[in-house]
């Protein structure tokens, strides 16, 4: 197998004396879609935040293309440009309209020409069905629309990899679908993605691999069919059971 795009080795993250991530190691290959599942508070969101160095880590290493991502280092901004991230809560800049939200980083950080980025942004907006909202402000959009804009904003930086942190957790069911569809189409284009989600059906549909995390450790690292049909650990069986309901009548 070729050199992995992202290589995480022995990652340890503590808050005070509380160990949140405990000796996490895994690789992500180019074009792979990894879905991270687990109970709330198991550390999956923290894992994404560590990959993007929004949190300092206490041990281990995270390497993108063989180059280490270090919290607080000088080239951190450069590294982060290669990693797009979309958050759970709406992280659009409320004082800028949709198109300016998208153009800000490519123009200021990558010093690209406005006309060129604008053309690309409009094309991406069209693909997510929001080209008519380019001049709208975030507060004029629904939650699902905001998340789609956030995805376009991340894509316009041409990242080699995308991180999604429970992007549909705060949305109404109908809006969940429109956001998940965008993510599915990105997966079809061969994008490398790490997705944290509670949407199990979606996880199964989109994932090349499922990572199941419990109490800061990777308990299962397997393909989705195996994970959902024949989970190896008791903890995973227990977890998956939460999503099954028996008829009450």
């Amino acid at each position, binding site marked *: 197998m070729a050199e992995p795009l992202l290589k995480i080795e022995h990652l340890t993250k503590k808050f005070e004396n509380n160990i949140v991530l405990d000796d996490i190691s895994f690789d992500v290959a180019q074009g792979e879609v990894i879905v991270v599942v687990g109970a709330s508070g198991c550390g999956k969101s923290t894992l994404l935040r560590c990959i993007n160095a929004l949190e300092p880590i206490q041990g281990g290493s995270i390497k993108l293309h063989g180059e280490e991502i270090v919290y607080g280092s000088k080239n951190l*901004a450069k590294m982060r440009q290669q*990693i797009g*991230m979309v958050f759970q809560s709406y*992280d*659009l800049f409320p*004082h800028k309209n949709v198109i300016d939200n998208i153009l*800000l*980083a490519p123009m200021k950080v990558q010093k690209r020409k406005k006309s060129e980025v604008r053309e690309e942004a409009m094309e991406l907006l069209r693909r997510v069905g929001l080209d008519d909202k380019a001049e709208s402000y975030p507060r004029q959009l629904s939650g699902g629309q905001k998340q789609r804009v956030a995805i376009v904003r991340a894509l316009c930086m041409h990242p080699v990899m995308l991180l999604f942190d429970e992007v549909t957790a705060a949305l109404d069911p109908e809006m969940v679908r429109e956001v998940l569809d965008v993510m599915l189409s990105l997966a079809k284009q061969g994008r490398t993605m790490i997705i944290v989600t509670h949407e199990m059906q979606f996880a199964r549909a989109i994932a090349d691999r499922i990572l199941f995390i419990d109490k800061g450790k990777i308990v299962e690292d397997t393909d989705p069919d195996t994970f959902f049909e024949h989970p190896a650990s008791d903890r995973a069986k227990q977890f998956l059971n939460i999503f099954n309901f028996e008829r009450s009548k």
Partner: protein
Amino acid sequence: MNWDFIQEYLPLYESAALLTVKIGVAGIALSIVIGFLCAVVLFFKIPVLRQAVSVYIEISRNTPLLIQLFFIYYALPKIGIKINPEVCGMVGLAFLGGSYMAEAFRSGLEAIEPIQMESALSLGMEKSQALRYVVLPQAVSISVPAFVANIIFLLKETSVFSAISLMDLMFTAKDLIGQYYKTTESLFLLVVFYLIILLPVSLLGSFIERRLRYAGFGS
């Protein structure tokens, strides 16, 4: 009311008002700069500087302007620092206003969700870029009402400048009362001139507030 007297001494008030405005504007401009720097120090929790800023803010907010001015004008020359009354007024106003502006900016900065900074950083911006393009514009518009209130407060505080022999509006009024006993006329002019200075600021302030609230982020 003696209108002839008012007409005769109008020019005196005009030049006094000009002095008040001059020192007021310079002092306020300086206090905005100080306030901005202090707020950034507090927001980023920069060690050492942060403690120094906290001490400054407490001293500045818990002593009256009159006493600050006395200290700068009468006490500092004893240790060899001599400054003319105009600069003294400016520095005094900036010393007082800096802390108020700092608190106004800080409350604006703290009102911005950390996710805003994080999402800017995750787009590959440097911290300074995130501050400049994302956090500050939002923080400033939140701070505007407190900001306008501070400007009006500081302009009103200029009325104690007469204590350090600056020939400002208050000084002129007291002087005329002392010389001619025309109390009503002198005080009438004083009130009118302060209103001429302050009313436009108030009106402009509430206009800006309305625009920021309704138009700024799209409605």
